């Protein structure tokens, strides 16, 4: 109890806002590009662009308020540490996009679908959280902790 509890309350509030707006707008981060490739529909793609641009602008404003880090475009310490790291990130991203598209929605959208009653989304989440334990318990020690 105390100041540390704000993390729980704020994260619950963030989740409620995201879940409410996600249900109303049917927003999906991988759905944007998928709909564009399939039927040339740019509605969700505009949402993805808005998410990217708005977060860029907001972080710029927040950094200006904090008075830090304005002389560089890229954040320090985020560059992959060599060629193999780039390959690993590329392969991981490729698999993430591929499997998420096959499942029909990005993970956040699956949470929203589960909330509005889609049975398949609950099956997705069951595998999702089971794999979370499997990954941190058995896979991550072999791969090594990844610089995020």
């Amino acid at each position: 109890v105390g100041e540390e509890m704000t993390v729980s309350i704020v994260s619950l509030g963030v989740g409620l806002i995201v879940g409410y707006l996600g249900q109303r707008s049917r927003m999906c981060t991988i759905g944007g590009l998928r709909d564009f490739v399939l039927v040339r529909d740019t509605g969700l793609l505009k949402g993805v662009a808005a998410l990217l641009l708005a977060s860029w602008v907001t972080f710029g404003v927040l950094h200006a308020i904090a008075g830090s880090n304005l002389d560089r475009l890229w954040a320090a310490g985020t560059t992959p540490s060599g060629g193999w790291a780039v390959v690993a990130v590329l392969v991981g991203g490729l698999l993430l996009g591929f499997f998420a598209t096959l499942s029909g929605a990005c993970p956040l959208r699956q949470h929203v679908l589960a909330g509005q009653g889609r049975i398949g989304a609950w099956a997705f989440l069951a595998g999702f959280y089971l794999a979370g334990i499997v990954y941190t318990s058995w896979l991550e020690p072999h791969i090594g902790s990844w610089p995020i």
Partner: protein
Amino acid sequence: MTAGTATGGRESAWADLRIRAARWPRSPVFYGIVVAVVAAVAGQWVINPPAAYGLCSACHGRDLENWIINHVYGKSLFVTAAGSHWPLFTVVGVVLGSTLAARRNGELRSINIGGNVPQFLLGGLVMCAALFVGGCPTRIIIRTGYGDVAALITLVAIAGGIVAATVSMRWWARR
């Protein structure tokens, strides 16, 4: 406009704006702007470290379940510094917020479209890939906005994966 607007344009303009504002939650662009601002502010001021950690379905879900396992069974699974003292309830909030929105608008109903076993397996694969690259697609976008070079590379790779999956799904459907 009907004939009864002689009382003044201000009320009708105000009513017009209210009708438009009621439609904003339906817009993906509105979602993008609000979610980006909320996630960036929460990540910068409350939910950190790591940086740009305001919203992520994979990492926050991993933190919550590992926090529960650590506290119930006394294990020491990996939890980020942000969610180690008190748990992160973001994923719970997303499901509850979606239920609330669906209930308010009469869209809350149980739908089974089949294919639940493949969904279960794909869920596992998506979680492993997301934890490997350090975030679900939404957090990858927010991290790119933060200025993360690795996230930008990941975003390009995710786009490639989406195009590959969409094209191959269309190919399977046409066969």
